């Protein structure tokens, strides 16, 4: 859920930016927020450690072909002289410090991109822990008040060992004047710390001299990079600083910030580093001592890798092709990745021990280091595995399922990477509603009652509370009575057409804080047409309590309730211009007996639906007044509104899977619903996924009910669908490719035939 965390960060940054620019009350609770966040990190680390065993999957060399290859090469005995000789001839040569600097730079570049949300969360935490916002409200503060002094001292020591002519503490005496500036500074600091964590983990856990030297050299390079940004910041040398910070205002996220930093690196960092290491013209690069020279070599590699950061990539797939390698290089890199991976695995074990035996800041720092080393290991594994696959591609010895093996590995690594990534950012709440149907069928009557199960990712007890709520229990009990009545009546009176009774979930939608569920009951007990009624419930996703409209009102706006009633009244008036008292009708939903029903959240806004007869004649049908979300800000407390997704994209597609495929080929960690013949999954993050029984004719195609709903699905989720008589399913979701777009609803009709299915993209009838 990287994009979601990014969006949260972007939103937080924009809020903080506003707070930094406008007068605001001093917040004394930053330390408490930091402590609470840190406790969350500790808990999420526990979840990671004792959860889906991702840590073991990542460290277990038996999962990776390149490790198996390296182990095999190492186990060759003297009897296999030719292989041994070829191995040493090819891999020993040039697997030196410079080669390792090259490899590690690629890993760092990949990690920097993938670590974005973690860095953002860490930067925010440090800002809170250092009470930066409060300090800035009282006046400008120095860099050293924002940054961790331990980091500055460590960096200064490294600079000294490099002989670099730069006084970091002089730059750190410069001031920051707003929170956004502090956060950018902290971002660079956190980025530096995570690079150090990875490089120190490698340096301290390998016996390979060349790798150790490379890690040490890159610690120097990373220190130079950090010092460069601090110095440039101090001198306000980012020419476009205004746009630099302006871009944080919701429209962009840290990925863009990284790209801007990468541009800086590519253009200016290398000459700057050369200057500070050589003292300008006084000393040629060639005369630098070994460590500064190697660090400077790393600078060139950092600058080159910046283009990869700018190009943008994610774990797996296209990223690997960016780093071209010839056949020999592939084998050499497999070996290098094996050596590096061994060092990181050993580091992870040590860090786990440190985490288990520490608390407070020390524990937090150790978890940060573990995430940095772990995500670095993900990229090392990915890189090694890619080399393994490419080294054999097209050769006679290549297995037929080469791409399948690589696909499985990238899926596994994605899972491990995401599991680590979830430790720092506070993930978005996932809400999933599944449905079980209880059906009866006989000649005289057919009935169906849908019962739901609610899953709330960050608060499973809330999900259980909603599932077993009094409102829903009463609904089911009433439905059971009506069903039994329909069966009894049918047996007695039905002739020709059977009687029927159906309770179905008609619609579902979750905002950031609330879940709205609409049920529809329909009964045919003879006569000209069936009778139907709707039951609408909106639950608090924090407590599981049933909400009233009054609960939603923004307390900070004294006019909010009246303004909201006015907005609904206007909406109702435009829907039914002839209503005599639309304001009174709306007010009755706020204050009357229907405070817990009639209203609900939808994808488009907050709606009130009046049933037939409630405010107009039966023929007018259901009448809905809708107030779009953009008109609700300031009227409804933001906690109840949907998240702002302007900096997120949801490009994933949803797929329909038969049971056999789902179980044998999938790589899912979360299953929802009751196992059945078919289910749904997404190949990435998919927004507002809803599945139901499909109905299609020459004139219209629509979803008849809801068989499951998810505010979002990830590639790790699989949702079983209840089996239905009609054998046609419709799956809808929102595909959002552009950050700024609202997204496009996509719907697919699946028709089941003989255990298989036909698939057709459809336009749903409005």
């Amino acid at each position, binding site marked *: 859920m990287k994009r979601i965390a990014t969006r949260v960060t972007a939103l937080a940054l924009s809020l903080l930016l506003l707070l930094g620019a406008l007068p605001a009350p001093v917040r004394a609770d930053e330390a408490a927020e930091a402590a609470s966040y840190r406790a969350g990190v500790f808990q999420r680390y526990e979840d990671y450690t004792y959860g889906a065993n991702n840590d073991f999957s990542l460290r277990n060399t038996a999962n990776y*072909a390149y490790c198996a*290859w390296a182990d095999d090469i190492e186990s060759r005995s003297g009897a296999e002289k030719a292989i041994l000789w070829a*191995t040493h001839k090819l891999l020993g040569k040039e697997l030196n410090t410079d080669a390792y600097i090259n490899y590690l730079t690629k890993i760092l570049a990949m990690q920097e991109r993938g670590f974005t949300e973690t860095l953002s969360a860490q930067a925010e935490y440090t800002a809170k822990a250092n009470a930066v916002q409060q300090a800035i409200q009282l006046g400008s503060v120095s860099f050293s008040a924002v940054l961790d002094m331990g980091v500055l001292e460590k960096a200064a020591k490294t600079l000294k060992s490099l002989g670099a002519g730069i006084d970091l503490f002089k730059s750190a005496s410069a001031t920051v004047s707003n929170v956004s500036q502090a956060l950018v500074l902290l971002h660079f600091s956190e980025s530096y710390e995570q690079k150090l964590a990875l490089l120190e983990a490698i340096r301290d856990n390998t016996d390979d001299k060349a790798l150790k030297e490379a890690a040490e050299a890159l610690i120097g390079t990373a220190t130079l990079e950090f010092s460069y940004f601090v110095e440039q910041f101090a001198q306000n040398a980012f020419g476009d600083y205004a746009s630099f910070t302006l871009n944080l205002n919701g429209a962009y996220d840290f990925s863009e910030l990284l790209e801007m930093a990468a541009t800086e690196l590519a253009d200016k960092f290398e000459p700057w580093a050369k200057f500070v290491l050589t003292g300008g013209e006084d000393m040629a690069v060639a005369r630098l001592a070994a460590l500064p020279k190697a660090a400077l070599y790393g600078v060139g590699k950092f600058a080159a890798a910046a283009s990869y950061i700018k190009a943008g990539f994610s774990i797996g797939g296209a990223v690997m092709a960016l780093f071209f390698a010839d056949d020999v290089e592939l084998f050499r890199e497999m070996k290098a990745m094996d050596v590096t991976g061994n060092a990181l695995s050993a580091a992870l074990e040590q860090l786990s021990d440190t985490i288990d035996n520490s608390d407070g800041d020390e524990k937090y720092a150790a978890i940060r280091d573990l995430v940095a080393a772990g995500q670095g290991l993900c990229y090392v594994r990915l890189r090694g595995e890619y080399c393994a696959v490419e080294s054999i591609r097209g050769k006679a010895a290549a297995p037929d399922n080469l791409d399948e093996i690589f696909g499985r590995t990238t899926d596994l690594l994605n899972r491990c990477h995401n599991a680590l990534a979830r430790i720092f950012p506070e993930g978005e709440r996932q809400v999933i509603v599944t449905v079980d149907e209880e059906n009866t069928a006989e000649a005289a009557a057919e009935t169906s009652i849908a019962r739901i199960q609610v899953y709330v990712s960050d608060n499973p007890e809330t999900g259980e509370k909603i599932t077993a709520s009094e409102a829903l229990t009463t609904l089911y009990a009433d439905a059971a009575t009506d069903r039994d009545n329909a069966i009894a009546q049918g047996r007695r009176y039905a002739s020709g057409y059977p009687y029927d009774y159906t309770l179905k979930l008609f619609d579902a939608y979750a905002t950031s804080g609330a879940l709205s569920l609409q049920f529809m009951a329909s009964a045919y007990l003879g006569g000209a047409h069936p009778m139907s009624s709707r039951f609408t419930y909106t639950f608090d996703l924090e407590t599981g309590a049933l909400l009233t409209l009054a609960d939603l009102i923004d307390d900070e706006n004294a006019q909010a309730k009246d303004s909201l009633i006015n907005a609904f009244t206007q909406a109702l008036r435009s829907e039914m211009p002839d209503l005599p008292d639309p304001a009174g009708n709306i007010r009755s939903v706020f204050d009357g007996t229907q405070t817990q029903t009639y209203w609900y959240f939808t994808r488009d806004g907050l709606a009130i639906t009046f049933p037939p007869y409630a405010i107009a004649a039966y023929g007018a049908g259901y009448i809905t007044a809708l107030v779009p979300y953009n008109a609700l800000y300031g009227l409804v407390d933001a906690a109840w509104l949907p998240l702002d997704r302007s900096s997120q994209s949801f490009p994933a597609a949803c797929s329909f899977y038969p049971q056999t495929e789902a179980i044998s080929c999938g790589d899912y960690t979360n299953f929802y619903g009751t196992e059945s013949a078919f289910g749904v999954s997404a190949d990435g993050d998919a927004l507002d996924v809803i599945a139901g029984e499909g109905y299609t004719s020459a004139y219209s195609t629509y979803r008849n009910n809801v068989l499951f709903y998810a505010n979002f699905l990830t590639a790790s989720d699989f949702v079983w669908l209840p089996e239905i008589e009609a054998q046609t399913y419709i799956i809808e979701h929102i595909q959002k490719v552009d950050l700024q777009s609202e997204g496009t609803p996509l719907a697919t009709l699946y028709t089941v035939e003989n255990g298989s299915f036909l698939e057709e993209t459809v336009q749903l009838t409005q």
Partner: protein
Amino acid sequence: MFKSKRWLALAVLLSLAVAVLAGCAAPGERLAVKLKAKIAVESCTVESDDAQRTQLTATVSLPDYSAYMLDCLAEAERTAKDENDFEEKLYALVLDAAADAPDSATREIAVDLTALDDGKAPEDWTETELDAAARDAAFDAEVEEFCLALLTETYPADFTPEDGAAESEASAE
């Protein structure tokens, strides 16, 4: 006078040292020198790129050493005592096999001269040095091709990843 005698003595000592060191060089290396001697440099060009790195590009003709190595592999593997001995046996067999064979391969090679000596300007490289660099690179490329053929066979083609959710941590690193 004394000075010139001293220089002469030093020169003699140096020559002796070089001769001794050459004699002590690994047998495989001495054979490699002989194999490289059979490589003919047909043309070469020295250029500096935008990053001020000096590059040599050359066309060489040589026996198809990598093919000879594959032909001689089994015999060398069978008779060699150890890894170093394998190299000696292999090179000796290839030298014999290619003794009377005409050059059958042409290679285009590129050498980063800056990597060999970053203090040297393009014009400072002598023809002899460039020829040696081209021969070394061409021979290395042949050896690399042969080694690659051997290493490709070591890939675990039947590799099956373990279930990532396995409970035991026994085989974790």
